């Protein structure tokens, strides 16, 4: 069990390009279709993956505390301000409340909710090194700026401690004196930090120039390879995605809430079922991949443990009695 936790998730070990395009595709499709079946499947996939990545306790706590209230508010705003639709339910001070507006409010709220859930997975999987690697070729200067920013933030924290210790030795620590003094010392420490940061940046840039940053023919080190598994995964996902696009063209994913609710793909036919199935596999793909890998690892582990605990006289025969 311990080993499982140490190992990274299978999907996050894929090539960064696969991760990035997968998330972009799933998030954009979830945000731009208002089809209820699609949204439900997308929600299921996002929830499973978030739980797998961050643990169910954290996911549920975060969502109950922050996302659910926001969702309820959004779901109520729409019917109180918008009065389109044909099915009138009752009257409020702001006007008639319609079934269409309520349904659409719920759909919008769940869309926002799903997008946030997917983005929380994205934050876990697409770490900054992957982001910088992916965009290093296209936007080299900008991605350098990014990696520098991420490096500088903890660096500033460390330097702040150094400066504080120095000031402390001079008797100018934040813990000394009255409030005014404390604020004054704090500002001094910050001022020293910022001056140091700027000078340090210039020195770093001189050092980079001296080592030949930006010269022709220099390559960047990276540990990512587009291996055979990535090819398989991307072909598989692209195939499923094209099924979804065909379905979109045929109007299976069509959904309209104004003025009347119209949802494509019903009654269920073979095409619509296949589109939903394809979308379901896409959304659950990271989880499925992780579970399959876990299973295969466990099998290997069991085999290894068995071989290890065999007595020496049985080892030559590979565990089988002669």
């Amino acid at each position, binding site marked *: 069990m311990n080993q499982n936790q140490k190992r990274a998730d299978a999907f996050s070990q894929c090539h960064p390009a696969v991760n990035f395009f997968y998330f972009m595709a799933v998030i954009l499709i979830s945000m731009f279709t208002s089809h209820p079946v699609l949204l439900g499947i997308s929600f299921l996939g996002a929830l499973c993956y978030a739980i797998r990545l961050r643990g169910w306790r954290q996911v549920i706590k975060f969502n109950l505390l922050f996302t659910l209230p926001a969702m309820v508010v959004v779901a109520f705003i729409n019917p109180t301000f918008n009065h389109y639709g044909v099915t009138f339910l009752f009257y409020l001070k702001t006007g008639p409340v319609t079934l269409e507006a309520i349904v659409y409010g719920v759909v919008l709220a769940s869309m*926002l909710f799903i997008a946030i859930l997917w983005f929380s997975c994205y934050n876990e999987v697409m770490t900054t090194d992957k982001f910088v690697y992916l965009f290093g070729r296209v936007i080299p200067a900008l991605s350098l700026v990014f990696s520098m920013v991420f490096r500088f933030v903890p660096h500033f924290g460390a330097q702040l401690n150094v400066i504080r210790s120095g000031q402390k030795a001079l008797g100018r620590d934040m813990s000394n004196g009255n409030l005014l003094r404390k604020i004054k010392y704090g500002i001094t420490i910050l001022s020293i930090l910022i001056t140091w940061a700027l000078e340090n940046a210039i020195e770093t840039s001189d050092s980079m120039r001296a080592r030949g940053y930006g010269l022709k023919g220099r390559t960047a080190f990276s540990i990512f390879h587009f291996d055979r598994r990535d090819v398989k995964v991307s072909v598989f996902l692209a195939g499923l995605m094209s099924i979804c696009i065909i379905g979109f063209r045929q109007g299976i994913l069509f959904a309209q809430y104004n003025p009347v609710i119209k949802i494509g793909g019903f009654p269920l036919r073979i095409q619509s079922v296949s589109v939903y199935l394809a979308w379901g596999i896409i959304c659950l793909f990271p989880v499925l991949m992780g579970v399959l890998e876990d299973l295969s690892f466990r099998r290997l582990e069991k085999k290894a443990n068995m071989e290890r605990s065999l007595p020496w006289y049985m080892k030559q025969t590979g565990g089988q009695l002669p």
Partner: protein
Amino acid sequence: MLREDKLDTFLDAFLEGRENPPKVDLDFWEEAEKIRQPEKERFWDYQEILTAPKGKGKLPPRTIASVFLILILIPVIIFGGIRYWDDRKYLKVSLAIAFLSTVPFFMVFEGRKPQTKELLTISVLAAIAVAGRAAFFMVPSFKPVAAVVIISGVCFGAEAGFMVGAVSMLASNMLFGQGPWTPWQMFAMGIIGFLAGILFQKGWLKARKGSLCIYGFLATLFIYGGIMNPASLVMMSYAITKKNLLAIYISGLPVDFVHASATVTFLFLAARPMIEKLERIKIKYGMIQE
């Protein structure tokens, strides 16, 4: 030590063995005093106006190009959105606007192959903004990001202002959580820095504490709030009507006021020391263009 030309004449005279070296004045100390005299008046100005634009109100051609790109791109996208998707799909259109209006700045920035010094300074400023946003995490929307962005726009030009704004929003969202709001935040914060740079270069925004604070207040209230409020409306609901817009502006007003007052506070406290430090760095390491 004598200065170069004087040293030359002195050495010529000395080496040729002339008795009286001609026109070697040894009172250059006093001359230096004379030269320094007008600087004292400038010093008085320096107290008030923290830094002055270089190149007398001329914008660099790249900045003008990016302004035009923005001015052309946004109507084209709006028109295209209405023409090809039906005009109900605000979310697509506005996301496309926010995304595509950030792209020209990045492309211009990439295209001119920026110096490492500039890159590093921009990343330090963005890191300061990110760290500031992280440091004030317990006070919602009371953040120093806009102040840092305005100061960098004033000191390093409109483009650097945009870069610092956009990069710091994107980077800090990687810590705080990305979402559909990221492109809007990037664009809004970037445009605050960009406008600060342009107005400063044109001489309409003086680098005084007072005028910076006024600009910071207005920019945070009307640019940042003015972009983020409709953005949240678009994220929550497709229906954009006058009434809805007004409602969301009014409901967003307290938050925007907190944000704007934070910007004013940080500008008031930090504008002078920050600008002094940045100007010092610029002079010390020769980062002044032209």
